[in-house]
């Protein structure tokens, strides 16, 4: 009996020693994404892109003097409840030093308010685009590598007016993403002389939206603007609008620029569909990322992969800069990408580590843009309008 006890104690001690060992060897970063839920189809490439950044760090000598950086993946399911659940686990159980993600705005807001800000953990989201995130009381610990939808909504409104569309109906998903985008779109569209002839929110997951569409079309607009996800409800709405001829032209936000729309509805039916989406402006950084991501089997044109990669790489740079101090990461994030210092391009980890060790200022030039954070932790963005051409989305020019 005693022997068993002894053996048990020894095993426990051994296990503890092992855990302590691995805690020393690894720097854990939380990688929160909408693995299940409405953006489940978009999430895997985004996670892969962030993992690529960590892979490069580990391949080039590791972080904080040779430790390896490990991403602990959590599923935010694109909703506030699951986001908070998995963020709590990442922050309290896994003891991550920083969070990359979550992906969806609602989850970002909830995680920031109830997990990351109280715990003092820096949150860097690659795709939480709601304007609400700008105004968070976050002690400067919530930042993003993706521009706010406030820019996108306004740019899309101006672009539509330029294209000669002056009367639209707007259908938006009743969550932080849809509402934020719809509000800034409506504001700018009406301020510049356009008319919004129908404006209604909808819940996700219903089987029929024909009555919603009939209500919207009663205002007499022939263009429908959809702020929703193309893998989810947005697809159902677009399908039912097309089938019943409620509208002639369709416009989507970045969420609607999903391959699922083309795969399920057929390119031949989508000749009057355009969608706006953030784009990386052509740069050496973007080329470097494209090559690296293609080499690991990723699709560099998938949505939000550039911002995801940048978020991962920036987080690693900030951890190195802050010397592994959890509280210093937010400040370090600004320092490594404020437009001043020696430029660092995607993948140039060894060079960055050397410069940080020397005490030289560095400035990360991301694949998605220069990423100079403003006082709210936001970055300015570039957008383009896409149309469907030969079974894929093709840019028809930038919008401003």
């Amino acid at each position: 009996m005693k022997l068993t006890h002894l053996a048990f104690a020894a095993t426990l001690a051994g296990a503890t020693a092992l855990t302590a060992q691995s805690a020393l060897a690894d720097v854990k970063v939380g990688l929160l994404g909408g693995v299940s839920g409405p953006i489940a189809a978009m999430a895997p490439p985004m996670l892969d892109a962030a993992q690529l950044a960590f892979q490069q760090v580990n391949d080039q000598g590791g972080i904080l003097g040779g430790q390896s950086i490990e991403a602990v993946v959590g599923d935010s399911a694109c909703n506030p409840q699951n986001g908070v659940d998995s963020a709590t686990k990442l922050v309290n159980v896994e003891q991550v030093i920083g969070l990359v993600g979550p992906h969806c705005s609602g989850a970002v807001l909830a995680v920031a308010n109830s997990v990351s800000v109280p715990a003092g953990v820096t949150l860097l989201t690659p795709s939480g685009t709601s304007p609400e995130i700008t105004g968070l009381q976050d002690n400067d610990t919530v930042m993003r590598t993706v521009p706010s939808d406030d820019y996108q909504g306004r740019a899309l409104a101006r672009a539509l007016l330029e294209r000669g569309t002056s009367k639209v109906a707007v259908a938006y998903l009743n969550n932080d993403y849809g509402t934020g985008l719809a509000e800034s779109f409506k504001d700018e569209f009406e301020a510049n002389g356009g008319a919004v002839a129908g404006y209604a929110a909808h819940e996700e997951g219903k089987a029929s939206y024909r009555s919603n569409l009939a209500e919207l079309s009663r205002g007499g607009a022939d263009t429908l603007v959809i702020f929703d996800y193309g893998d989810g409800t947005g697809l159902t709405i677009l399908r039912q609008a097309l089938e019943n001829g409620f509208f002639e032209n369709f416009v989507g936000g970045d969420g609607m620029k999903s391959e699922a729309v083309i795969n399920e509805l057929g390119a031949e039916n989508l000749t009057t569909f355009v969608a706006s989406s953030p784009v990386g402006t052509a740069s050496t950084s973007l080329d470097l990322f494209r090559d690296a991501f293609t080499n690991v089997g990723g699709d560099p044109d998938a949505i939000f992969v550039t911002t995801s990669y940048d978020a991962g790489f920036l987080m690693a740079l900030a951890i190195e800069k802050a010397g592994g101090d959890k509280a210093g990461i937010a400040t370090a994030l600004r320092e490594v990408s404020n437009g001043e210092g020696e430029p660092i391009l995607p993948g140039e980890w060894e060079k960055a580590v050397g410069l940080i060790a020397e005490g030289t200022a560095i400035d990360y030039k991301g694949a998605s843009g220069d990423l100079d954070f403003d006082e709210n932790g936001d970055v300015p963005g570039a957008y383009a309008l896409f149309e469907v051409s030969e079974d894929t989305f093709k840019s028809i020019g930038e919008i401003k």
Partner: protein
Amino acid sequence: MTFMDLINFYFVPGVVLGSIYALGAVGITLVFGILRFAHLAHGDLATFGAFAALAFVTALGVSVWVALPLAMVAAGAVAIGLDRYFYDYLRERPKILTVMASLGIALMLRAIVQVFWGVDTETYTRGIVRPESYWGLRIRDRELYTFVAMFAIVGVLWVFLQNTKWGKAMRAMSDNPDLALLSGVDNRKVTMLTWAIVGMLCAAAGFFLGLNTELKALMGWTMLLPMFAAAILGGVGRVEGAVIGGLIIGVVEEMSVLVIPSEYKAALAFAILLLILLVRPTGLLKGKVL
């Protein structure tokens, strides 16, 4: 808005949606009536059925109408398996344990669907189908089939329950399981038969939902509340009540957009459920009170 617009854009979608709710609600009402618990895995079993049909369509290259009966058989077999391996162990325990277990089953089924078929949105056939006009009435073929098939499936079930020996045994067990046992009804066999029928109805509901919209891993789960509302509205244990309840909920949901903001449409089934439980807990057709 003309009268035809009201019919085409509010009433017809409501009836189609209602037919899908009805198929699900009949299954729920059978489990409620005969086995006496709220089966929370119903929606996800429907999702499984819908994806099973997709598997037959893609793997065998058969038409969707051949895939439907195959998927119904598959889902029926899965339902029997679920009972055998999970619910049966809890038979003698308080029913709330089985209800909670069914929630776990729901999550398992959804995970299985996501593992096997992935998380992308799928459809049975690519492209879109524009509605045909019948004297101003705009209906798509598949909507007509949905409505007709619902009545055909429920009709067969109705005849089975009224006229066959096993149907009568099921009704007897629904009325009083102890008395049925004393009269020589084999409760185990009736339970198995019930699950087979419930699984088939689930597959049909999921199939028609997928046919009219898209297949998603969460499609069934989001239908669960309206289906329960339909079953309770019609009267628990009443098959014809579930059909009436399903149609009412479908039509009311679609019509509601005329008077309330569209974001509240999803809450309507819940409102009806609360109202019926307050005002007439037996449902429209005097079902059981649970």
